[in-house]
């Protein structure tokens, strides 16, 4: 039901992101989705990758503070209005969104994906199971590699 996101604390300085992403490249870790939440002094890098546990180990070895978090991935059709439907459904079950990010993809089963981190996520996920929203599990993600 959930997929694993890896997040890392990164200071705002030139070249830092290139360095971090470079380490993932060297270890042949594929990035499916990415977002950065930025403040004046630092950013929180959030990634959905092919090997979250491997990426965690790698970035820790490079002295980064990292964290694995369960997030919800929703499959969408890449066409007007499909995200609006999902968000209305979220509203119906009273799910409050901490953050989200979206991207298009090339899977045989869907061609867009939205990552959600919800408040009271376990409870919300139970309710979503009964809705029309199509959640993606970690197995489905493997097709993207």
């Amino acid at each position: 039901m959930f997929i694993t996101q890896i997040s890392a604390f990164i200071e705002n300085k030139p070249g830092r992101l290139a360095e971090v992403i470079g380490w993932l490249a060297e270890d042949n870790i594929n990035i499916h989705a990415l977002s950065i939440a930025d403040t004046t002094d630092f950013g929180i890098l959030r990634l959905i990758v092919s090997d979250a546990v491997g990426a965690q180990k790698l970035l820790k070895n490079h002295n980064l503070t990292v964290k694995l978090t369960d997030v919800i991935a929703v499959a969408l059709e890449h066409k007007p209005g499909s995200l609006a439907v999902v968000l209305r459904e979220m509203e119906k079950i009273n799910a409050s969104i901490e953050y989200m990010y979206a991207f298009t993809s090339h899977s045989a089963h869907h061609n867009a994906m939205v990552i959600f981190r919800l408040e009271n996520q376990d409870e919300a996920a139970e309710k979503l199971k009964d809705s029309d929203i199509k959640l993606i599990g970690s197995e489905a993600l493997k097709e993207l590699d």
Partner: protein
Amino acid sequence: MSYLNRPYWNRAIETISRDELTVIQNQRLRSTVEKIYSRVPYYRSKMQEKGLLPADIKTVEDLKNLPFVTKQDLRDTYPYGLFAEPLDAISRIHASSGTTGKQTVVGYTKRDLDLWSECMARCLMMAGADHTDIVQVCYGYGLFTGGLGAHGGAELIGASVIPASTGNTRRQLTMMKDFGSTVLCCTPSYALYMGDSLKDYGMTKKDLKLKFGVFGAEPWSVNMRHEIEDRLGLEAFDIYGLSEIMGPSVSQDCPYHAGLHVWEDAFLPEIVDTETFEPVPDGVLGELVFTTIDKEGMPLIRYRTRDIASITHEKCECGRVHARMSKLSGRSDDMLIIRGVNVFPSQIESVLLEEAGAAPHYQIIVDRINNLDTMTVEIEVSENLFSDYVKGMEVTENRIRAMIESVLGISCKVRLVEPKSIPRSEGKAKRVIDKRVL
């Protein structure tokens, strides 16, 4: 005005001969030691450990045999353990922030407060102030001794006192101009800041009537004195003091600006070697140690200030016989003075311990921006401080900042940084970077 024409508040005691002063000191030292021995069990046992009886202390020469008192002793006897009078006789209590939340507490009897005002009056008059002056006191009023200390002396000389306290620079400068303040009391960095701010409010120093400034509570250089004098159009004096001994007015420089006269009829100064703690000769730098010989509420014997200075007993051209200490040249511990407030890195460390579970690596960066001290605490983000959403990080940052501010009583900035980004030497992080150039 000729220097020698400047009035003394107490000519008899300020220009007393060294021999006469020594007689007073010996007599006051003996009664202080007797009083502490009989009334303060904590210090009595310290004397007993050294096999000392009050009768062993006959003159100032014997002072070197007595045990020291440190800030730790004040903490160990918190809050009233070193008071030599019952609380009934205590008129006022002051306190400074301490590590792990415990403050350093001091108590004054009515007579102590009079002595304090007397010493402050001598300082103000030594600077050239008198009853015709308007004294604006921009030290903090409250537990900090600066505000009320300066206030008492200014009232005693019969000046008109403006208890402006700290903050709100626009209002301070407006009052200074409209009320015609002639004497300013504040920290030297704030004096400089006010000088720089004049133009922001469409003023110049010609709009002000300032003649003298009595600045203290933090170390400053001769260069800074000249800068302040230039910007505010006044003559600047360096006043020294610490709450444990009295507050401001323990010493101050005279119009010859050749060292700070210590009021030796009330405070006996010593300089000791920072490693052997043996007294050193005049002119040699060491740790400044004070013994109060005219206080009732909380007399202290050989209190180690941790301030580094030297001392001279040569008579000054101003006619005063009271010994002069040099401007402070540093500290023998890691204490920082930020906007006049004493800050120990361990205070910040204890907050981090409490807030982050384990003490993360941190660094305190002190700077002076537009003549105002700033403090930034950089903290390496450990896993228990990290959150995957911004709100969570901001809450953490704000919580730590609020805790530090409440412990220290001054504002600060908290910046979260990556692990291992704070430089370490021999595995240990350098805790303090002080970028201020005095």
